[in-house]
């Protein structure tokens, strides 16, 4: 049975924890709004870009001269998994859900006899993967110094990827990130970016003149499309991270509240018990006289 003083100390410590989680929740809410804004601002670009590239790809894609980024290297031996996670923790299952998906994919690929390489973006994913998968990890991109995600961050990652692709280090690249659905639901997503894959490759409705040639434009745009997709994924991830943190902190705040209630009841009970005890002692002392 803890003493009254112990209980009092615990209550005050839980109270200050609640203040911290509450503050973190509010900070996450503000950051979430900004991250969502950024994702929204980027959407028109990504959508138009993908539409045009998909249109081009469907018209050029069948020819033998199609660029490698679209047609692939002709084999799918070596897979590069780009695992995008956050730089900070305390955001619920955000990082583990991405890592879990990536791990499942890596295990499946290994079972098929393929070679797996892992590139991590964000510190948390690297920490989680390092224990079992360190022999597969080839590189890490550190974004911890980045205050505000910009397109140039995505370009850096894309340049790294394309350099490795040109050097023949891998055949297929897949990015893993969390798609932002709402504050309470983020969907871990795997998306193949090299060779480029377009889901709705319906031909463009209007026939365009191309200047320079279709192939030249496609060759120019495909590397940019890699950067665009990475940028979109980074933004989705940033919004998801803040959303996950917000709901995790909301839960923590609520749990702290429950704990405070419970501890307060216990505190009051033991105080009452002490008072009753003293009364009994006084009364029985008086009776004995």
């Amino acid at each position: 049975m803890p003493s009254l003083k112990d209980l009092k100390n615990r209550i005050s410590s839980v109270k200050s924890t609640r203040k911290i989680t509450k503050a973190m929740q509010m900070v996450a809410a503000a950051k979430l709004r900004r991250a969502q804004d950024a994702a929204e601002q980027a959407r028109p670009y990504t959508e138009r870009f993908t539409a045009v590239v998909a249109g081009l790809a469907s018209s050029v894609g069948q020819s033998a001269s199609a660029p490698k980024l679209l047609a692939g290297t002709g084999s799918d031996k070596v897979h590069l998994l780009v695992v995008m996670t956050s730089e900070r923790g305390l955001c619920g299952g955000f990082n583990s859900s991405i890592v879990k998906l990536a791990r499942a994919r890596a295990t499946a690929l290994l079972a098929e006899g393929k070679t797996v390489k892992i590139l991590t973006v964000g510190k948390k994913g690297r920490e989680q993967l390092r224990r079992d998968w360190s022999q597969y990890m080839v590189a890490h991109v550190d974004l911890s110094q980045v205050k505000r995600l910009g397109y140039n961050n995505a370009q850096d990652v894309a340049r790294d990827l394309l350099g490795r692709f040109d050097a023949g280090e891998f055949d297929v690249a897949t990015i893993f990130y969390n798609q932002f659905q709402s504050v309470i639901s983020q969907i871990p997503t795997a998306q193949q970016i090299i060779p480029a894959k377009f889901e709705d490759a319906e031909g463009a409705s209007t026939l365009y003149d191309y200047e320079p040639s279709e192939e030249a434009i496609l060759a120019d745009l495909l590397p940019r499309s890699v950067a665009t997709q990475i940028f979109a994924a980074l933004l989705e991830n940033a919004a998801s991270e803040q959303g996950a943190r917000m709901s995790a902190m909301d839960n923590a705040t609520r749990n702290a509240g429950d704990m405070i209630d419970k501890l307060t009841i216990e505190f009051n009970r033991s105080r009452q018990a002490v008072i009753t005890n003293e009364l009994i002692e006084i009364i029985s002392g008086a009776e004995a006289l």
Partner: protein
Amino acid sequence: MAEMLQFDLVSPERRLASVQATEVQIPGADGDMTAMANHAPTITTLRPGVLRVIHANGSDDYVVSGGFAEISAQGVSVLAEQALPSAEVDQAKYDGMVAGAREAHDAAKSDESAKTLADMIAVGAALGLAAR
């Protein structure tokens, strides 16, 4: 009154402009072109350059680099990797852009990157800024 066309300029980070314009001068990879209403549908890649939009209230200049322009009968949408209103481009920003192009050229050493760098320097001349 000339016919109007819808002009959109978007960069990955934001939408810079969405206006009704009478003509748009685009720095295409194969040369400058001017798009007006009912232009034949065209897609062209961009070289670093100054894009000028002429609309009812005057004209706006933007420095763009990378990306493409999609011209249809109804409008022009320009998707540029880097885009800034000319007025916002000062010496420091311009130096950064030239440094970026130079770095890319040093890494790639290709004809394309050399052209990009040359175009970037030409942008400076158009804006009255000196490349260092």
